[in-house]
């Protein structure tokens, strides 16, 4: 039982981590820690500004 709970917790943790990466939340966290900024509209604007060049150039398949 305990093993099943641990496995479920690991699975959900991995899923959440993956979703946070796909949806760029983790990238924003890394940006905040790298620039020593607190989350704010200005910080998010700076993040998007830096991120846009790379993100907007990513191709997406058909």
């Amino acid at each position, binding site marked *: 039982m305990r093993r099943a709970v641990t496995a479920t917790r690991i699975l959900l943790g*991995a899923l959440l*981590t*993956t*979703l*946070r*990466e*796909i*949806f*760029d*939340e983790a*990238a*924003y*966290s*890394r*940006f905040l820690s*790298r620039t020593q900024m607190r*989350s*704010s*509209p200005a*910080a*998010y*604007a700076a*993040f*998007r500004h*830096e*991120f*846009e*060049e*790379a*993100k*907007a*150039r*990513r*191709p*997406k*398949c*058909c």
Partner: protein
Amino acid sequence: MLDGIGTEHEEQGMKNTLSTLVWLGLAILGAAAVGVVAVHRGEPINALWLVVAATCCYAFGYRFYSKFIAAKILALDALRATPAERLENGRDFLVTNKWVVFGHHFAAIAGPGPLVGPVLAAQFGYLPGTLWVLAGAVFAGCVQDFVILLFSVRRDGKSLTEMAKEEIGPVGGFVAYVAVIAILVILLGVAALIVVNALKDSPWGTFTIAMTIPIALLMGLYLRRIRPGKVLEVSVIGFILVLLAIWGGKWASLNPDVAHIFSLSGPTLAILIIVYGFAASALPVWLLLAPRDYLSTFVKLGTIALLGIGIVALHPTLHMPALTRFVDGTGPVFAGKIFPFAFITIACGAISGFHSLISSGTTPKLIARETETRIVGYGAMMAESAVAVMAIIAACVLQPGIYFAINSPAGVVGSTATAATATISGWGFPVTAADMQALAHAVGEQTLFNRTGGAPAFAVGMARIFSQSLGGETVMALWYHFAVMFEALFILTILDAGTRVARFMIQDALSHIYKPLGRTSWYPSILATSALVVAAWGYFLWQGVKDPLGGINSLWPLFGIANQLLATVALCVATTIIIKMHRAKYAAVTLLPLLWLVAVTFTASWHKVFDPSPRIGFLAQAHALAAGPATAATARLIFNNRLDAAVTAILVVMVALVLIESARQWIGVLTGGEEVRVKETPFVMTRLAEERG
């Protein structure tokens, strides 16, 4: 001591025996399932046979074939530092968990292609598409994605264009660049046409999709001003608002005044989408593109998972026969025989050249260890192939008469319900006007006749599967419009992002002529290049909307040819590198898929340009139009057909040049006449192994 070693040996022996038995069992099960799918005729079969056949093929492909490639050809080295480690900058280059990279990669490669292509190819029956999706993915598509990803990882994450230039020569680089632009433009035109065909005269669908624009703007403002960076949170809010918009669509369709506003013709929708594409390309990313991208990804991942569960739980019966009479090339959805047309119609679920751009784009910069390229490159493509199998099932659960009534253009079956049902019933697929009216009523549409493009048929199939699992017939209309919204949202995201990517590529190229044109923040350049890209795909869209045969008949094969020609370039690059790595005896792993694609694409191109049937050959259609009675549109239709023929011919000639250049390299290396220089980054020992202890 000796006893301990003996026990260990026994345990290992037991494990090996058990493993052999499991794989033997899977082999028997897989062979039985593929056998049933391939040889069963007459009675309908259960969709679970396709699911079991696919699962076993993927399991064997991954366990044995990809392992063989990894060990014998690529020699994956877990101790070699990847660019994500050596060049880590916290932005593009970043050491990332392999499952996270898998998610990223899958989200980028899985577009509407694996949903639409298999639905269109279902006109041949379920068998050709299923066999091509399974064999194509295991032996070609997964291999291409895997080897290109690894070769890019070993070259600091270089793009396919750069690798083609370095390994084959300047011709390779130039052709890859032109092929990418051509594919983007044709893809965007076809994708927009699919949306137009799904939404024309559909107030419910149009209202729902129109509402996603203010929802995306609201999400953008929320992310920027209210809760910066909380993307998952705002995506959930956006998803709930979209569900409300679907529900609101019913109200819109029942209210005559509102329904009138949202009942739009094909040309009107085409103009609106062209204007939207230009605005999305020129507006700041954070306002519309990024939030829509997040919303689309959220809906996409959820819906694919839900569809998979629905198919397994409900295991519906496939009503489409294994093979239809249209294997002779007279199909109403698109003209042409199984070979070569089934193999260019289904690209993304089997092999897609576009994937090589992603395998040599963002993904190689995130890989932590070389050994992870196997699960990400080969594994993610298998998942995409599984999506294509789901699309085949969704199309084939429909009664064939209904499938053909939805997917056939008025130019082939007639423009009235009576004429269409008589034509289709005459083919041996009985359907009545009353059946179609009842189905249209059940899904909340005025009519389902002549809804070409694949998306409406997929939506009806998906709604049928969902409604039988959850909610019954009473909620079928909601599921149908959920499916239409899902596909249209998906496609509009590709339009947004694709227009912008093509704009950047053109700006990069123009910067060599005049520097400021390359600046992505200089508005004159942004507006000019956006207009250029939108005009290019808008032209193909307009051509498709005005085409009496529905547009898909000529544009989807053109897109398929362009996409598979890019795969040909990618496989040329891969084969060249394998030969240069002194693994020539294994070169067949990429050479055989390459030869197959050359046979498919060159034959398809020949037919599309020179076939004497006006339904297949562009020039024959132009000739037939010229010989027929002249109307106001005749001159333009003739020009369109000649242009399509010219585009096809130019692409084929360019890829032939890459093939010749590659073959020259291979012969040079194998005969010792050419100096062998593989342009890999020198080996650097990873530090990650030490950190992990």
